[in-house]
């Protein structure tokens, strides 16, 4: 019994790591642009499809190459999306258009997948063999999910604190006007943040494809859970997502275990509403502190 719970918690943390990475990809774009990309879940699923088409049942060498390739491909797609989304914001007084355009891009991506691939879930083989925890077989991709989360957390940390472009993106999120006065190329930095968010979800989607449902309608589930993870951790706080993501994942897995798999999304929705009602700044967000 106890070990069962333990296994569920470990799987929850692994699934939650995916949510955390999506939440971090929200954060970097939101910090630089104040935009929340509703299409991020479908971009993540595109990564899964890339794994299916480019790297199903292949050797490690090709797999690694394809991982990079699909990350770059999806980064390119998200960058184009970002360019389109930012276009009307340049001149218009109406600053809400991104809400509509990112939702419609989300629908377009899902529809294109549906038309070309049909409404099926594709299964992708894992490059990492399954391993045993407490006597239970655990798919290797769960480990990859956690590794990917930690990799992206530290990679972002390094990028945002040590590199010139990363520092400039941080500066943008800390004081937009001062950043413009300093001559930082705002539009280019915003597009770079979109590209990085695409790189993140593209690679993670690729890595965890063996354990998720790679299907055209799965994107919404991930955009929702990624958002909940971001809100729980405190929007803008990447460190917060390291807790927020796994927390949401564990809640979802426990719900599935105790109540039923169909209630997972409901549980996430309840977590979201509770946090927004009682602690809108998130568990770890501090008012006024926008750490990246």
């Amino acid at each position, binding site marked *: 019994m106890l070990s069962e719970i333990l296994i569920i918690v470990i799987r929850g943390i692994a699934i939650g790591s995916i949510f955390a990475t999506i939440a971090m990809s929200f954060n970097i774009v939101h910090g630089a642009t104040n935009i929340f990309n509703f299409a991020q879940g479908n971009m993540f699923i595109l990564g899964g499809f890339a794994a299916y088409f480019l790297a199903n049942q292949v050797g490690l060498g090709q797999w690694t190459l394809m991982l990079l390739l699909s990350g770059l491909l999806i980064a390119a797609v998200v960058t184009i999306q970002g360019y389109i989304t930012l276009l009307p914001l340049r001149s218009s007084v109406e600053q809400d258009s991104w809400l509509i355009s990112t939702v419609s891009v989300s629908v377009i991506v899902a529809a294109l997948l549906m038309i070309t691939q049909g409404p099926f879930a594709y299964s992708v083989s894992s490059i990492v063999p399954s391993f045993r925890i407490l006597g239970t077989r655990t798919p290797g991709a769960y480990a990859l999910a956690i590794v990917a989360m930690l990799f992206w957390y530290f990679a972002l940390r390094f990028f945002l604190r040590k590199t010139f472009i990363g520092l400039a993106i941080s500066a943008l999120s800390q*004081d937009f006007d001062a950043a413009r006065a*300093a*001559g930082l190329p*705002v539009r280019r930095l915003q597009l770079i943040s979109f590209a990085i968010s695409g790189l993140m979800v593209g690679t993670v989607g690729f890595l965890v494809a063996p354990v998720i449902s790679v299907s055209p309608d799965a994107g919404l589930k991930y955009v929702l859970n990624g958002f909940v993870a971001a809100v729980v951790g405190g929007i803008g706080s990447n460190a917060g997502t390291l807790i927020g993501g796994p927390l949401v994942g564990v809640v979802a897995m426990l719900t599935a275990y105790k109540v039923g798999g169909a209630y997972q999304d409901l549980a996430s929705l309840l977590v979201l509403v509770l946090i927004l009602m009682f602690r809108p700044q998130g568990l770890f967000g501090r008012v006024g502190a926008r750490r990246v």
Partner: protein
Amino acid sequence: MLEVKNLVAGYGTIPVLRDVSLTAKAGEILLIGGENGAGKSTLMRAIAGFNKPDSGEILLDGKPIGGTAPEKVAQSGLRLVLDGHRVFPELSVFDNLRMGAAARRGDRAGFNNAVEEIYSVFPILKEKQKLYARDLSGGQQQMLALGQAFIAQPKVLLCDEPSMGLAQALLPPILAFLRRWAQTGTAVVIVEQHLAVTAPYADRAMIIERGQVKFSCLASDLDEKLNAPAHAAE
């Protein structure tokens, strides 16, 4: 160097500046004074591209920059230091200086030299170069904001209320720094409330009242000019 002709600008539908003209020459400090709400900050922000002018011209080296985005204005050599000692609070002091290089038309060595120069003028910044900018005092943040602008080596520097939120005693070293900076051939515009402290460092002065230029004069004549009209309310 910087020439503003008949500028009309404001926020949204609120007109603030009416028909303001000014020039700033290389190597000179122009001091702009006036009451709270007279439109001084709006003038700075309009020149730097944050507010789109309704009419009038802004020329930098003879090229019109009115209506250009602020980051483009900065890259073309006009740097605004915003009021309220605004730095990037979650970046280290050194990284704040690095951000200054975004608008710099220079090389790596030039950047290092500029940083060294800032450190020698404000040794406290060198001492605290690894700390977050949020951990600095208001005066140190102002030095940092100016240092960041110095790294960019702009042709024109606009400095909005460097004294805001600072102890008065901190102002003279900052003004002395600006004076030396101007002498290297930069056109400097300072907006300031503390005219008596600032005027000795400036070459020319201009008073703005209710969005219009009330008068311009040599900085050395400012005191006399201000005292000439009687106090209206008395």
